[in-house]
């Protein structure tokens, strides 16, 4: 088999700093290669540089591509020649279909544009080809969907439309940059299946860029692992998974969250009353009603309805569901940041009994958010961020004492003065994602809460760091008898962390119970699909 694409000594530099440091790989036609690495490893830049789309980058090396017009070096090609190759010989699909599609044009027109540009079809032929393409990606009612604007489609449908656009000219090579990362887990499996089907049907080669090893195992023939711009290992998927050679590959394969929590059976005795007791909690958002009636009143969107659950000391309740299922809203209600209906009590006290009672409750319920970059104010020092809770709840404390407490809280989450000189006067931008998440945990812990709400605490982190943060949280739970309300979309995280689990869909709890029972013997079809999507 001759190589379709042969990359030799590819180096990509931004402003004199090498991001990709001389990598070699090749793809045969009809082959599925996965490029795996964490964020910042240079995998996306590699793909972009092949199409000359890496702006301000300085690329060296060769990338011989056996296109329709004979073998060419993609890196040395002038821009007009590259433009004919893009879309016709090599197509690309991106991570976020919402931003990759123009929001002002119907998706059909955007696909038709490619056909007109690259194949010179007339309008009528175009419209027919668009519908055929959309049909081949499995979108229901393709003729109607072609007229839809991107926001009128669901995430999965948008990604299907992107795939249809990429396949419009039957490319020989498809570059897929994290094609499923932005999608819900149950949709991911479908898109992956679709890509595999189409790949067989068209006989094209696929370069899949991803950080998700589950995906690689299901999809790819061969695998290349990148770390800091260097290709550390490559081989067939079976060989690499069976006996990873490089330490980094082993670390990646090993990074699946591990369960390490105090084993409490469902019948294990729990001391004292439940920490959090919710019965029939519902949350509604006002939404505008179209037409004249909307002038006078607002409609209601029910984000959470009839949620009933309890959390007891030292246990973790996992809430799993896809985006829009109301799980984050439930977390905000538990934090008293979102008005709710029904009955929700923390330590036997409901929210909203007055300022003083709420303030006392806030000490016992704290939160860690998903995005470590937006959850820390960029203009406050570590001391101000972590010490804020003490300012609110123990305002009489002297500054020196507060600093001591802050340092102790930081040490508890694994950030110490001797690693970071002047730790207290540093600003968040100097910390990496995982370290910032530790800061967020320290900020929550300093007021000594009994319940910690974890809203997707690891989904913005790389897999290896995700594991570290989960281990930190597990350790803290054991030491302090903390209870967690863990919100996530990731079944692996639930398996590793939770004692009990609630499965949410469209604002309703569809299934609940101990983790082992719910995940090993799911009864609701949605739970079954969820569990099936990761195994």
């Amino acid at each position: 088999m001759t190589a379709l694409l042969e990359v030799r000594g590819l180096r990509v530099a931004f402003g004199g700093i090498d991001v990709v440091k001389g990598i070699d790989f090749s793809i045969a036609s009809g082959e599925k290669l996965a490029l795996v690495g964490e964020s910042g490893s240079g995998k996306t830049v590699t793909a972009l540089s092949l199409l000359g789309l890496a702006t301000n980058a300085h690329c060296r090396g060769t990338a011989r591509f056996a296109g329709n017009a004979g073998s060419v070096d993609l890196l040395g090609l002038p821009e007009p020649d590259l433009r004919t190759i893009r879309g016709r010989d090599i197509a690309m699909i991106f991570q976020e279909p919402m931003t990759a599609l123009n929001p002002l044009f119907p998706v059909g027109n955007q696909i038709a544009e490619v056909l007109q540009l690259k194949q010179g079809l007339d309008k009528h032929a175009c419209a027919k080809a668009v519908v055929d393409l959309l049909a081949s990606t499995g979108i229901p009612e393709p003729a109607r969907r072609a007229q839809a604007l991107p926001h009128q489609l669901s995430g999965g449908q948008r990604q299907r439309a992107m795939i249809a656009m990429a396949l419009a000219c039957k490319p020989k090579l498809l570059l897929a940059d994290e094609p499923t990362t932005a999608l819900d887990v149950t949709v991911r499996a479908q898109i992956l299946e679709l890509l595999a089907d189409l790949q067989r049907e068209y006989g094209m080669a696929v370069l899949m860029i991803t950080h998700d090893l589950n995906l690689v195992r299901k999809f790819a023939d061969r695998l290349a692992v990148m770390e800091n711009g260097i290709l550390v290992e490559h081989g067939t998927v079976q060989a690499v998974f069976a006996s990873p050679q490089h330490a980094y590959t082993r670390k990646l394969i090993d990074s699946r969250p591990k369960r390490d929590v105090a084993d409490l059976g469902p019948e294990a005795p729990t001391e004292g009353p439940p920490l959090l007791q919710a019965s029939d909690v519902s949350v509604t958002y006002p939404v505008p009603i179209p037409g004249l009636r909307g002038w006078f009143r607002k409609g209601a969107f029910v984000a959470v309805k009839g949620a009933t659950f309890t959390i007891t000391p030292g246990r973790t309740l996992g809430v799993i569901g896809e985006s829009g299922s109301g799980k984050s809203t439930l977390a905000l209600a538990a934090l008293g940041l979102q008005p709710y209906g029904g009955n929700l009590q923390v330590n036997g006290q409901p929210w909203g009994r007055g300022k003083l009672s709420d303030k006392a409750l806030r000490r016992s319920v704290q939160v860690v958010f998903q995005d470590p970059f937006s959850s820390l104010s960029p203009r406050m020092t570590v001391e101000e961020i972590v010490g804020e809770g003490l300012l609110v709840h123990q305002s009489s404390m002297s500054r020196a004492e507060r600093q001591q407490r802050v340092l102790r809280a930081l040490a508890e989450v694994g950030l110490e003065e001797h690693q970071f000189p002047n730790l207290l006067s540093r600003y968040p931008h100097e910390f990496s994602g995982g370290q910032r998440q530790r800061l967020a945990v320290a900020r929550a812990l300093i007021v000594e809460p009994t319940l910690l709400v974890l809203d997707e605490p690891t989904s913005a982190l790389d897999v290896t760091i995700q594991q570290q943060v989960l281990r930190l949280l597990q350790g803290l739970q054991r030491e302090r008898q903390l209870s967690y309300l863990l919100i996530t979309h990731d079944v692996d995280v639930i398996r590793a962390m939770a004692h009990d689990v609630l499965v949410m869909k469209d604002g309703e709890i569809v299934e609940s119970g101990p983790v082992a029972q719910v995940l090993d013997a799911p009864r609701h079809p949605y739970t079954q699909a969820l569990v099936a999507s990761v195994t």
Partner: protein
Amino acid sequence: MNLRADVTVRPPSRSPARRAWARFRRNRLGYWSLVAFCTIAILSLFAELFSNDRPLVVRYEGSYYFPMVQDYPETTFGGDFLTATDYLDPFIRERLAQDGNWAIFPLNRYGPKTLNYFAASPNPSAPTSENWLGTDDRGRDLLAQLIYGFRVSVFFALALTVTGVVLGVLAGALQGFFGGKTDLAFQRFIEVWGAMPELYLLIIFSAIFAPSLALLLVLLSLFGWMGLSDYVRAEFLRNRQLDYVRAARALGVGNWQIIMRHILPNSLTPVVTFLPFRMSGAILALTSLDFLGLGVPPGTPSLGELLSQGKNNIDAWWISLSTFAVLVMTLLLLTFMGDALRDALDPRKVDQAPAPETQP
């Protein structure tokens, strides 16, 4: 169990404001514009020492006199009248130049209101060794007028900017933070308020009240805050739903503290970016009102009034050209500063060091 984050060694911390300042300094045009503008503005505060119709110190017949701080009747220096001395009078000058007597005059021997009764040619007179930039059509020294006019313009603009920023930030913060009905009510109020014809109001008010700088400041401030408040409102709306604000709420931090400690510092970027542009806008506003005769009271040195004189005496090129030059210089310096500031505060611009790799 490895709970410890890996060691990273980095240079000591700098706050975001200090990093922005470092980026600003790196833009040499903007930085030197700031230095030049501040120097000129501060020097203009001491304009009386450079451009005045009174000597700084007089030594007359054995005793010292300080005409800058005290009025002396003409009889003190051997004149005939009890009126305050006119030190430009050739007779007085002669007396002060007699043996043993001396006087230190400022660099430019004219104040903003001094009429040169002793000019060689009719007013407006062209530049001479006496009046370096000539005189205006009433015989006042043009250089003195420009110096004092610049001072009035700059400090009026500064005051207008400060009041505009305070009002704008306050209004924008209230709307953005509380949102909902407060926001709706404020927005409608701003629409109504913004629809008022500012110029007509100024004309009407200048007919009712005696024109003064303070009145002008109040009137212009009443309308000057709206543009800024929209930006601040948008920033507040964005920032108040970010996770760090939610986390602060979950900690039980009060509204006022959240505004002051969390949201405001993160919402000031548009305010700071627009400061120089607001200054130049305010200078232009004052100049154009003066040009129309609706601005400062008559007799106050003013760039706009000089421009209007230049228009009326089109052949007296020294009036319009020199006023134009001063205006252009001032506005250019402010614009350069504004450009540099905008670049320095652009979140997409990074420091020279590469962005930290996201590694544990």
